[in-house]
């Protein structure tokens, strides 16, 4: 009887131990899930923070660009138009002064006409620079064509432009971004890249329009972080994001750049 009791207590001991072991196993599993979950959520939060940070940077880039643009417009207005209108106003006052000879009047009115013509011309140029009327009226193809002609006419650079697709004028709002991107790229090629040949090509694959842009300038070192986050690049990136497109840029020192984006 006693031997049986000992045997039974052994059995119970084993039962309890294995039961506790199983529960602990379950507990370990739950703790593992609990901490993994915490860690993963943490990582995701960090990722979200990074994204927000990035968006903030983009936003500040947009604001800075806007301010610079305003500054440029103000400067253009001040230099090219206000100064001329000032002289016009001065000359008009002169006309009021008594005892003017016939010759003086002719000279003054000649001055006024001359200056107003120049001011008009300049205001047209400024307006044109802000938003080319060709782009607005005739679409992206004509706009880019004109842009290329303008750049080519400076003789410093030769622009090859080819278009294998058709642009719907109804999508002009989107195309304006494309135009601005090209403007920015060409500006960079000329100012920083000292390029002499620029090639632009529009193609269409799988219903997505694609633009390839390349130049033969001095390029830049892609591994250098300083080159990657310039204002212009950020501007391009936010425009691409707007178009739901993707953007890749390849470059090496003295190899020119090659940029491809779709929209």
């Amino acid at each position, binding site marked *: 009887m006693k031997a049986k009791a000992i045997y039974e207590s052994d059995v119970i001991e084993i039962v309890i131990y294995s039961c506790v072991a199983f529960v602990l196993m379950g507990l370990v599993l*739950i703790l593992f*899930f609990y901490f993994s979950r915490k860690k*993963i959520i943490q990582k995701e939060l960090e990722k979200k923070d990074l994204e927000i940070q990035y968006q903030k940077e983009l936003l500040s880039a947009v604001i800075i660009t806007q301010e610079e643009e305003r500054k440029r417009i103000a400067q253009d207005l001040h230099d090219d138009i206000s100064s001329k209108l000032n002289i016009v106003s001065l000359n008009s006052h002169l006309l009021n002064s008594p005892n003017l000879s016939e010759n003086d009047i002719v000279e003054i009115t000649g001055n006024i006409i001359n200056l107003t013509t120049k001011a008009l011309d300049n205001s047209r140029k400024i307006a044109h620079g802000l938003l080319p009327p060709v782009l607005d009226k005739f679409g992206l193809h004509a706009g880019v064509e004109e842009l290329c002609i303008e750049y080519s006419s400076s003789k410093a650079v030769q622009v090859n432009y080819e278009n294998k697709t058709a642009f719907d004028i109804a999508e002009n709002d989107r195309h304006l971004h494309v135009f601005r991107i090209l403007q920015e790229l060409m500006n960079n090629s000329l100012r920083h890249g000292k390029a002499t040949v620029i090639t632009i090509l529009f193609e269409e694959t799988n219903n997505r329009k694609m633009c390839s842009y390349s130049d033969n300038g001095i390029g830049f070192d892609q591994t250098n972080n300083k080159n990657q986050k310039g204002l212009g690049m950020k501007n391009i990136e936010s425009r691409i994001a707007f178009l739901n497109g993707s953007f890749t840029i390849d470059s090496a020192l003295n190899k020119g750049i090659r940029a491809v984006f779709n929209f």
Partner: protein
Amino acid sequence: MLDLFIKIGYLVLGLNFVVFAMCFSNQGKAFRIFTVYIAVIGVIQIASRVLSSLGMGNLFLSHFYFIAQFIILSFFYLELLKEKYQRKIIKLTLILVLSFLGIQYTIYPKLFFEFNLFEIFITSFSIIIFSAFHFYNMLNEKKEFYYINMGILLYLFGSTILFLVGNLTVTLSREFTKIPWILNALFYVFYQLFVLYEWKKSFSKKELETNL
């Protein structure tokens, strides 16, 4: 002591049933399935209580308990899990296990009057695997039946081994027989407390809001 724990277990189970039934109408399908689960388990427990007080063997009810638990919780997880392969595994397991047990009982009807170890093992561990799936899915998503899932996992881990040695313990003398069942009753109370906590955390507020 055993009786005390069992009564507390009944009490919490009853409470759970009441609060879950209260929210029954304005909750999702998974919630309703779980309410049905609580109800069915409660009925089986009451039936076993009645049978034992009448002095009849109630061991055969364990089969109803395990199989009902397996079927209902399988549907519960089928509702919770959205991943295709996991759903496929649940459906396949459900069919395979049920057909296997059906075959087993037609060949050995005698099994009906003792603990069927294979049945205990296969039904409990299938549910444990499903609940692990659910934990895995919740790793990077919002918590859904988080505490119920925890309770199911812990209780099944603990109780499975106790049921598995059930056939052994019935042969022991009275003073030892009770110990595993005390343990089991204790686990059961914890399990039901988890369920209650889940209700408090996830559903009691919603209930109030919709009533206001």
